[in-house]
C-alpha cells in the first residue's frame, strides 16, 4: 500500500501568511494534478512533501515512510523537479546528471552510464550531453530537470509547473514520459494549465488559500457542473451589471468582447446559453467563490 497520506498539514510563515491550512488528502499511485492560483500553497505543499520544508503540524506518510520525521528515507524514493530549476555554470549535462545520479545512490559506474544514456535519450538531449548546461535554452534546461527527477526510479515524483517554457512538442514528449513512469508511482503535478490536468490526471485537487477546495476525478468535477454553466457575450458597459446580478464564474475576452460564464442551477434566460463545462469552469468555480470579475 504505497499511498501518500497527508493529514491535517498546516504551515504558517513568519510573516503571517498561512500557506497550508489543515490539508488532508490521500493520493494513490498514478498521475495526480494539483491545480490552484498563484499563492494557493501548492509549492509549499510540494516542498514539504519533498522534505525541503518543515510543517508546523500534521503528518504525511508515503507508505510506511513518515515524511516529516524520516526525511532521509523519503529522499531515497523521491524524484523532484522544482518550479525553478537552475544549473551550475561550467558543467556539462552529462556531468550534472552524473553528479545527481551518484547522490541518488546509483553508485555502480556502468549502471549509471546506461541510465544516463537512457534518460538523456528520453529527454532528447543525448546529442547535447557534452555541452555546458548553462548555455541551454529554458526548455532544454527543463528537460535536464526532468531527466534528473527520473533518476533512480522514484516512488514519489513531484513536478512543480514542469511545462512552463516548453514548446508544444516538448510538452507532449514530457507528458508521455510522465505517463510512462506513472504506473505504481505517485506523480504529483502542479500546474495552472487546466488542459494538462484533463489530459493526464486520473485524480486532481484544487487548492486555494492554503486549503484543498476540491478533490476528485476531473470527470466528477465536470459532472457536478453539468448543466449549470451558462455563457453570454456582453458589452463592456454591462459587464459590471452582469457581475452583480449573476454568480459569475469567469470572464474573458473573445474577439474583443467580454464573454462571461455564470453558475446557475436553472437557466437564467436573459440571452445566456448553456454550455458544456470545462475544467476551467471547475477551477474558477472552486477558486472564485466570491464571484468576482477578474
Amino acid at each position: 500500500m504505497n499511498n501518500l497520506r497527508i493529514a491535517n498539514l498546516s504551515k504558517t510563515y513568519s510573516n503571517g501568511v498561512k500557506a497550508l491550512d489543515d490539508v488532508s488528502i490521500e493520493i494513490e499511485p498514478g498521475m495526480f494534478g494539483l491545480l490552484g492560483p498563484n499563492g494557493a500553497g501548492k509549492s509549499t505543499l510540494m516542498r514539504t512533501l519533498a522534505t525541503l520544508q518543515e510543517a508546523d503540524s500534521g503528518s504525511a506518510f508515503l507508505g510506511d515512510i513518515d515524511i516529516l520525521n524520516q526525511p532521509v528515507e523519503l529522499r531515497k524514493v523521491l524524484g523532484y523537479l522544482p518550479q525553478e530549476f537552475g544549473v551550475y555554470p561550467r558543467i556539462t549535462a552529462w556531468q550534472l546528471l552524473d553528479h545527481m545520479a551518484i547522490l541518488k545512490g546509483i553508485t555502480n559506474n556502468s549502471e549509471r552510464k546506461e541510465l544516463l544514456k537512457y534518460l538523456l535519450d528520453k529527454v532528447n538531449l543525448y546529442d547535447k550531453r557534452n555541452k555546458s548546461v548553462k548555455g541551454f535554452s529554458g526548455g532544454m534546461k527543463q528537460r535536464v530537470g526532468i531527466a534528473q527527477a527520473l533518476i533512480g526510479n522514484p516512488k514519489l515524483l513531484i513536478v512543480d509547473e514542469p511545462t512552463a517554457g516548453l514548446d508544444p512538442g516538448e510538452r507532449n514528449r514530457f507528458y508521455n514520459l510522465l505517463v510512462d513512469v506513472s504506473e505504481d508511482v505517485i506523480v504529483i503535478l502542479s500546474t495552472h494549465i487546466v488542459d494538462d490536468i484533463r489530459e493526464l490526471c486520473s485524480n486532481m485537487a484544487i487548492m486555494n488559500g492554503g486549503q484543498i477546495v476540491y478533490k476528485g476525478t476531473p470527470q466528477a468535477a465536470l459532472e457536478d457542473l453539468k448543466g449549470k454553466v451558462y455563457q453570454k457575450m456582453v458589452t463592456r458597459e454591462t459587464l459590471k451589471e452582469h457581475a452583480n446580478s449573476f454568480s459569475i464564474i469567469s470572464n474573458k475576452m473573445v474577439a474583443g468582447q467580454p464573454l462571461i460564464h455564470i453558475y446557475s442551477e436553472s437557466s437564467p434566460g436573459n440571452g445566456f446559453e448553456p454550455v458544456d463545462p470545462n475544467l476551467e469552469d471547475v477551477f474558477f468555480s472552486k477558486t472564485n467563490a466570491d464571484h468576482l470579475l477578474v
Partner: protein
Amino acid sequence: MFKHFFFTELRYALRQPMVYIFLGLITLMVFGATSSDNIVIGGTVGSVHKNAPYVITNFTAIMSIFGLLIAVAFYNNAALRDYNNQFNEILFSTPLSKGGYFFGRFFGALILSTIPLLGVFLGVILGTLIAPAVGWEGPERFGEFHFEAFLNNYLLFILPNMFFAGAVIYAMANKWRSTVISFVGALIILMTYIISGTLLSDIDNETIGALTDMFGIRTFSIESKYLTPVEKNTLSPGFTGLLMVNRLVWVAVGAVVLLLSYFSFSFQEKKKAVKAKKEGEKAEKQEFLQPELHPNHGKASGLAHFGSFFYTNTLSITKSITFKILFLFSALILISSLVGGFEYYGLQSYPVTYKIVDLINNSAGIFVVIVLVFFSGELIWRDRDNKINEVIDATPHASLVSMVAKAFSLITVSCLLHLFFVFCGVIYQLVNGFTNIELDVYLLEMLYGKLPAYAVLSGVMITIQVLVNNKYIGYFLSIFLLFMMNFVWLALDVQTNMVSISDGPRISYSDMNGFGPGLTGALWFNLYWLLFAVVMIMGAGVLWNRGASAPFKERLSAGRKQMSRGYGLAWSGAFLAWVLVAGWVFYNTKVLNEIVTQDESELIAVEYERLYKKYENVPLPKLVDVKYEVHIFPEERNVDVKADILLENKTNKYIDSLHFNCDPEWSPEFDIPNAEVVLDNEEMGYKIFRFNKPMAPGERLEITINTAYRTKGFENDRGNTWIVRNGTFLNSSTIIPSMGYSSRSELQDKNKRRKYGLPPKDRMPELQSTCSEACMANYLSNGHSDYMPVETIISTSEDQIAIAPGSLIKEWNENGRNYYHYKVDHPSQHFYSFVSADYEVARRKWNGVDLEVYHHPGHDKNVPMMLDAIERSLAYYTENFGPYYHKQCRIIEFPRYSRFAQAFPGTMPYSESFGFIANLEDTENNNVVDAVVAHEMAHQWWAHQVVGARMQGGTMLSESFAEYSSLMTMKQISETPMKMREFLKYDHDRYLRGRSREVDNELPLLEVENQGHIHYGKGSVVLYALQDYIGEDAVNRALRGFLEEYRYKEPPYPTSNDFLRYLEPEVPDSLQYLITDWIKEITLYDNRLKEASYTELSDGKYEVSIDLEAYKIKADTIGNETQVDMNDWVDIGVFADSEEKELIYERRVKVNQPEMSFTMVVDEKPAKAAVDPRRLLIERTYSDNVKTVSEGESEP
C-alpha cells in the same frame, strides 16, 4: 530622473540592515582603538593624542581597505539588483533616461558606501567623550577636536577611495553582470595595492610607490614620515603635495572608467553567449534501454557522494574566473617580491629555502586566505545562487558529507596554490643558480604549519557561512575572526593561542636549528584546532539550511531529524577528543609553563616599582671577579650554571644587605656566607639577604650562585629561543640574577604609567659638566661591576663546540661531553656570552691575533669576507685609535630567531639571517657584512676599552663612535665618494624617521639617551660629516686622545663632555659652529637648487650656473622648529652623469644669504648639479638638492 534613481537607491539600502551593520562594526573598532591602548589600528600612537588628526587619518586610510568589501556590496547591488530580480526587462522597456539611471544608481551607491566609514569619526568622537570620562584614558591623551580633520579625511580618503573603487566595481558589474566578477574587481584593486607596496619597499621608488597607491595610505605615510609629534597633533592632511596629486590621479582614473562604462552601457539584454547550436544530423538512432538499477544507500554511498561533491566543488573553484585571476595575481606578487626581496641597506640575501618560505608566507599567503574566505562563501551559496539547491537537497545524501566535501575542496585548492608558490620559489632559486634546494623544508613547513591552518580555516569558515546564513555577513565575520578577533581578546586580556583560530606557536625554519623550539607545541595546537574544526563542521552538517530557507529554530529541528545515533556518537567523540587535547594543551601552556598577559606583566612591573623603588640607591658591592661553570644540554634544552663571584665594597659606606632579582625560570640558589634571607617575593623575584656583619668599605666577599634552566613541555608561543637544540646563545645577565633594584623592569610607556598612577619615569641622569657620584656607574654594567677578569668552564654535548669570551686555555672530553676552559686576556666589561652549536671554524692569523669565524656548515660563502673585514678593522683601529687587548677576534653564528650582532670581549655573536646568507657577489651594492663586522669590531674599542657613564650622552661614546669607525673602514674601500652617499642615506633615513616617531622630547646628540635613531643614525652622519669638514686625522686624534685618557680606567667613567674636551681643540674657529649645531643642538638644513644651467665656453669647457636656496632650521626639544639665518659652509658640485655616480666638480662655499647663485667651470659636459652632492648635511627632503642642468644661452 537622476534624482529619482539616486534617492530610490538610498532608500532601498537604508531599509536594509547591511549599512548599519558595517557602520556599527567600524564605529566599534575605532572606538576601541581610541579608548584603549590595547587595540591598535595601524601602529601605536606614541605621544600623539589619541584623537590627533594624524591618528584619525591613519584610521580612515586603513578602514578604507575594509571599505572595499562594503563597496562591492553596494555597487554590485546597485548595478545588478534589477537583473537579479529579473525586473530589467520590465524596467528597461519604460522610457527612462540612461544617464539618470546609470549615474543615479552610481552616486546613490557612492554615498551609501561612504556611510559605514563615517564610523571612524563616530568612533573617535565617542572615544574622546567616553574614555576620559570613564577613566580608561587620561584626559591629557586627547587634544581638541579638529573638525577639519574629519572633513579633509572624508574628502581626501573616503570619498575618492569609494569613488575609484566603486567606479571599477560598478563598471565590471554592469559589463559582466556577475557578483563574482565584481568581487574580482575588488580583488584587483587590492592586488594593485599590494604591488605598489612592494615597489615602495625600496626607498628609491618612494614617489612612484606614493602615486600608485590607490588608497593614498602609503602616500600619506610618506608625506607624514618626518612629521614631529606637534605636527601630528595639529595638522590635518591637506589638499597639497603628493597626496593631492595621488587623489586627483585616482579620481581621474575612476572617472574615465565610469565614463567608458557609461558609454558601453545599454538597456538591451546582454546577448547570452549561446553558440548557434546545429541540429546535428543524427547518426543512426541508438536504442537505449532502461537499465536495471540497484540503488545503493548504504555506507559506501557516502563515499561516492563525497567523491562527486568534492569533484564538482573543486572543479567549480578552479574553473572560476575569480580563482584564475587570484592565481595569476598571487603569482605576480610572489615573483615581484622574490625579485625585489631586499634585505638591508639595499642588499639581497641568497635565496636560501627558509627565506623563500618566509616570503611565500608573507606575500602570497594572504591569497590563500582570501581564496578560503571567498570560496567558503561561494561553495556554501553555490547551490542556492544557481537555484539548484532544492534538487540537490532533496537527494538522499548526508549534509555532513556535503560540508566535508566542501572543506576538502577548499583545502585542496589552498594546497594547490601553496604548492604552486613553492614551485615558483624553486624556479627562482634555480634561475639564480642556487642549487641547495631543500624540498623537505618546503614540504615539512607546509605540513606542520600551513596545511593544518588551511584545514582549520576551511572548516571554520564553512561553519560560519552555514550558521550566519548570509553571504556578506559571513564574509565580514570570517574576516573579523581572522584579522580582528585578536584585538578583542587583547582588550579582554585573554592571551592564549587557544582562542585565536588556527594559531599556535610559530615555527620558523633555521638552517642551524631546523624547525626549532616551537615545533612540538605547534603540532599539538594543530591537533587541537583540527579537532575543533571537525566539531564545528559536524555542527554545520546538522544546522545546514537544507531546502527552503528557514529560521534557525526550524533548521535545528530539521537537523535533529537527520542526525542518526551514530552521528551523535561521533560528534560527542570528536568533542571529547577535542576537550582532551584542549586539556593537554592547557596543561602544557598554562600549568607547566605560564602565559603572562600584557595586563598581568604590567601589573607586576607596577607592583615591583611600588614595592622596591625605595631600594634603588642602596649601596651594593660590585662584582670584581667571576668564575662561571656553564653546562649546556642541547637535547633536553637545559642549562646548569655555577658562578663563583667575588664581591667588593667599592663604596665608602658599610653594606648590610644584598638585593637580587631572581628569574623563577632559572631557579637560582644562593650560597652567601653569614647572611640570611630577609625578603623573598617570589612573584616579583625580589630577594634580600642581610649580612650578620656588614661589609666594610674595601672588604671582599666570595659568594656562589647556582642556577638551572629546565625546559618543560611546550608553551603557548615557541618559548625560549636562546636555549635550543643547535645554537644556544646566553649572556651573563640572563644566567645569574642581577643585583639591586632594576629600573629597567619598570613600566616604560609614559601613558601606561599615568594610567597606573605612577610618576613619569626617571629620565637618564642629566649630562653633567663636572662629574661626581653619577659617573661611578657605566651604562653597560649599570654600576654593578667595572673592568674585571672573567673565566669560564663551559661544557656541551659531544657534537657541539661551546664558546665563551677569552682565550681557550684547555679543552677536554669527559663523560661523552665536550669541556672548554676560557679566560679573558685583559680585565673587561662584565658583558659576557655563552654559545654552543655544531660549528665549522674558519681561522686566520693577523699580527698574533687569532681570527675565527664559527659558522654553520654550508654558510661559508661570506666567511672570507668577514675575515677580511676583521683584518681591515683591526688595521684601521689599531693604527688610528690604539692597541687591541685580546688575543682573538671571533664571529659566532647564532640561529635566526633574532637578527642582530653584538660585541662581547673579543667575541661577536652574529645572527644567521644577518650576513651569513647575504649575497655580496655584486660589489656595486652596499656591503652590509663589512659594515656590521666593522661596527662590532669597533665596539672592542668603543664600549669595551672606554665606556660612557650612565647618563645622557653615554651611548654616543660607544654607538656613534662605532658607527663612525665602521664608516671610515667603508670609506677606505669605496671606490667613489658617491658610494658612501648610498650608504649614508640609510643613516639619514634612520634618524629622520626615528625623530618623527619620538615619544619623548628629542635630544641633541651630546645628550642622547640610548635612542637608536640618534646614536646610530644622527651620530654616524654627524661624525662622518665632521671628518669631511675638519679632516679624518683631526677627528681620529680627538678620539685617540679621549681613549688614551680613559682606556680600561676605573671609574669615574667619561661623559660626552669629556670627549668634547678633545674634539674642540681639533676644530678651527671658523668651524666651531659645527659642534654647536650638530652635536650640542638640533639642526636641520633645508637646501635646494632652484635653477641649474650650463653654457659651453669657447675653450671647450662648460660653465655651470646654479641658483640655490638655503635655510637652517633649529628644532627645540618638543619638535617646534624655527628657521634661522644661514652662515654655513656647504658643498656644491656637478655630476657628469645622470646616475650621479661621477662627481666631477665639488667646492665648499659659504652660504650666508637665503638665495645665492654660483658658477662652476668643468671640463666635461655636465649632467646634473647639486647642493651638498655627497649628502653630508641632515635634510628632510634631499631630492630637491639635485637638478638636471639645462642648456643655457651660449655666451655672446
